[in-house]
């Protein structure tokens, strides 16, 4: 598969939310994020409604639990950075289940936030792109049977299987839809007792 190109986002006025109790780590992280140009909010122990507008979430991996996030576990709508103090296997496991895309070790000092933002954004985008691609592939896999039926229907009009397959591909291109959608249309038309070609063309 072709490698996705890496995008360095402009972080000016991006919103970061820190889910952590008041602590020098929050101060140090806020300083770094503000210097980079982000607008920073902090809350504890709950994320709060304003966090839904955040572009990045930093969360405490030491004290965190699933109920802190107002979404299905592991399905964050934005990039998440785990703030890890105790590198205990159970806490790392929970951070990963919560959907961490990057991590920063506590105590947070003078640096680390910028690379965490960029890496989290990239991992989040990659995950989203892969999920979409997998969903599409799954659907196409499910449509395999429909494709076989459509090719068989077209071949029944006296074509070879290879020609029927080529015709289906041409129909998909003419209708500007996917191969699988074209097959579904052929099969549906057959079921309705008419020729799929009778449908009005788009565009």
């Amino acid at each position: 598969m072709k490698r996705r190109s890496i995008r360095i986002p402009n972080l000016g006025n991006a919103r970061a939310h820190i889910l952590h109790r008041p602590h020098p780590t929050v101060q140090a992280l806020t300083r770094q994020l503000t210097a980079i140009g982000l607008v920073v909010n902090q809350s504890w122990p709950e994320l709060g409604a304003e966090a839904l507008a955040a572009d990045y979430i930093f969360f405490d991996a030491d004290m965190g639990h699933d109920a802190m996030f107002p979404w299905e576990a592991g399905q964050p709508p934005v990039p998440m950075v785990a703030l890890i103090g105790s590198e205990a296997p159970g806490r790392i496991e929970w951070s990963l289940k919560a959907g961490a895309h990057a991590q920063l070790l506590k105590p947070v000092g003078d640096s680390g936030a910028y690379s965490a933002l960029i890496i989290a954004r990239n991992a989040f985008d990659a995950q989203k792109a892969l999920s979409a691609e997998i969903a599409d592939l799954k659907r196409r896999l499910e449509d395999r049977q429909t494709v076989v039926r459509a090719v068989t229907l077209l071949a029944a009009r006296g074509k070879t299987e290879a020609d029927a397959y080529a015709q289906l591909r041409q129909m998909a291109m003419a209708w500007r839809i996917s191969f699988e959608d074209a097959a579904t249309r052929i099969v549906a038309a057959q079921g309705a007792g008419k020729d799929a070609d009778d449908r009005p063309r788009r565009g």
Partner: protein
Amino acid sequence: MRTSSSGPQQGFYVCGTTILRGQGVKRRIELGLLYSRSGSYSLISEACRTGALAAIAMVNADPALDVTFLPVERDPGGNIDAYGPLCEDIIRTTGARHVVGCVTSWSRKEVIPTVEKFGGTLWYAVPYEGFEASDHVVYTHACPNQHLLPLLDWVMPAHGCRAYLIGSNYIWGWEMNRLARERITTAGGEVTGERYLPIGSHEVGRMIEELRFTRPDFILNSLIGASSYEFLAAYRALGAEDAHFRPETCPVLSCNLTECELPALGPSAEGLVAAGPYFRGVTGWPGAGQFGSSHEAAAYSAVRELARLLSHREGAEGLPLSHLLAGDTGAGIVDPETHHTVLPVIIARVKDGAFQPIKQLGAVAGDPYLSRGRMAPVAPMLRVVS
């Protein structure tokens, strides 16, 4: 404004304080200087050191300030691995908590863990590639929205959008060229080649050969020291052979070349275009235009600002930078969020051995992460600098 003397210029020491004749008691504060006096980029180090020492002399003689600076010098000799240990030596074995120093970004990044660990502050007076805002560093020279971006904005309409990018093989060259490539391709331009040389290398032949074949509209030069001198001499020879490679048609651009390196370049510098906050004779920042170069001016500006921050604040010399800035009641030059400064942006061309400004853009606030809307104009600097 060229002085090599150091230490208090007038008066005498009494138990850690200096009595200035006819004045009150001045606190004597040690100030670290960490510049390489030999090695590939020593001309830049010497310019910065000259500016710092000039400011120290001026601070020490200034009756309005209740501090004198006693320079504590360490010389890494251009050896990258000596910076961290020598900075630690200054902070641990002397009273100095502030260090003015470093030329390359590589050395700055070596020193940052040390100042962070020991609560020190580095004052960095050299243009750099941005994307940094340490809590323990003040950046008094320009970052890309104050040098590279205005320079590209000038060159592309004037000469075209096909660029050849060169640099020394470390973070300055890499990041400058990454940003340049991004801006040039976004503007619909093209990068005809990108080459790097190890610091100190003279192997510029391949670059010249590639230029001969790709014939770009301009060259962005982020080489430093001897490599840069070698390249510019070879490029001048290429221009003598092929008229396309003359400054009028295919200029060489630089974001770190100042007057301090012109003696090493001689006629090779003719026609070179540079961006910087100061060129010799330009008034406004950080004084009356008496500095030899912007390197000198930026180091001077750093020491003057530190003196202002410490003056009439007993014990402030031991504070970490964040506290020092937070307690400042005056009009400081250091942005408390980014630790960068507001600087004029000037584009100048070398003519007859001196830089002549061709475009002046006024004062621009340093925007290290390019996140604050670059080129946002700021109010003119009104602070009077003696």
